[in-house]
């Protein structure tokens, strides 16, 4: 429970931290996305129901920060009122839950103490989340544009995630050990 809370709070601080990391000029302006890496670690370390909670938190926070609302001035009162939400609050929750569920499929390997595949997968899924965002925007605004820059930004965030994931996983595994949380079932540990 303590470790779950630590990971949940880490999601928030990862989101805050990534606000201060600018786009990477040597990766065509790709962004460093820390929060998805924490989420994907959570998907590996916790059971399905806990992953859903983390996906809900991550998706909610992300949408609350990025959702764009259109406003119009009410002619009668002269006040500005919200008229339309471009992409509904909550869609990132579904996206993260879907990606987290994919990650959970690789949990048995993680429980055997192998996590190189998962680090790689974190990158792939981070890119998938950026691509999904782009497709959602395209769906709303029209004009399906896929330039080299778009692909770089999608892939670049994934590449950065691949590099950062091992450090992130190592730190969380160490914390899990220090608070006595078993990321690997005892039976499997003993069998090894």
């Amino acid at each position, binding site marked *: 429970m303590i470790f779950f809370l630590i990971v949940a709070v880490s999601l928030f601080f990862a989101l805050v931290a990534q606000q201060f990391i600018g786009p990477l000029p040597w990766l065509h*302006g790709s962004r460093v996305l820390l929060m998805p890496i924490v989420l994907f670690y959570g998907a590996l370390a916790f059971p399905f129901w806990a992953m859903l909670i983390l996906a*809900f938190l991550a998706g909610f926070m992300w949408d609350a920060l990025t959702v*764009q609302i259109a406003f119009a001035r009410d002619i009668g009162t002269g006040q500005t009122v919200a008229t339309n939400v471009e992409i509904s609050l909550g*869609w990132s929750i579904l996206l993260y839950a879907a990606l987290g569920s994919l990650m959970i499929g690789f949990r048995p390997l993680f429980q055997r103490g192998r996590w190189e595949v998962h680090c790689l997968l974190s990158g792939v899924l981070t890119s998938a989340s950026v691509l999904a965002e782009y497709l959602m925007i395209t769906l709303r605004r029209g004009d399906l544009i896929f330039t080299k820059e778009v692909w770089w930004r999608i892939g670049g965030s994934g590449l950065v995630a691949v590099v950062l994931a091992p450090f992130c996983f190592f730190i969380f595994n160490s914390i899990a050990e220090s608070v006595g949380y078993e990321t690997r079932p005892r039976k499997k540990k003993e069998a090894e």
Partner: protein
Amino acid sequence: MRRYNIAALVVFIFMVGALFALTPRNTQKVQSAFLGMISPFLKTGSGLQQRVVAFHEGLKTLQQLEQDNKTLLVENAQLRTGLSYLRDLEGENNRLRHALEYRERAAFNLVPARIIARDSSTWWNTVRIDRGIDDGVEIDMPVLTEDGLVGKTTAVAGSSSTVVLISDENCKVAATVEGTQEQGIVKGERTSSGLQPQISLIFLSKNANLKPGMRVFSSGAGSVFPAGVSIGVIKEFRKRELDGYATIVPSVDLTTLEDVFVVFGKK
């Protein structure tokens, strides 16, 4: 699947459904509440970031300091020379402004604000400023610098607000081109090559005789942005099937922006 996994899934679907069912007004309230919650962390982070940058910049070698000193001496001499010329220009400028009543048009009530964080998302262009409802900021207020237009406020919390930049595809500004009758809409490009955001001027007439270097100003139509604020200069103009299209270099460097002003209306 275990029972409590199914139960969690049902609760999860119900909660996501509830979020999807939110009206735009309630979504706005949720967004403002979350912005209010996160803003103390963003402000603290921004302060830390500034300290780290200041410390990093302070670490200069003796050679760098000597070089800086030389550069500053040259700059000083250049500035002194330019100052007398500028004084003449200032007088002339004031006269012309008076004649055109430009001062009256461009005189806004401005509230200074500092950028505390930038959006970390790939496809949206927003920044967060350290002014909010407590300072009188409301939704849809224009944000600018002395160089030109920056964007407008969208989500507003107690002591911070989100500003959607003119480089965002969703921030549209009615604009006019200097020295012509051309009117159009300025909007950001979804993707731009490199780090510099690109903005474009659309819905121009096909026969618009626009040349690179012509300045683009807000026209004031739409009542959100005041008229006469510089947006940028035309980089390229081309004819499309139905309209004319121009790419614009923004007047304000949106990537290095630190301080802005929120426009509270005319004086």
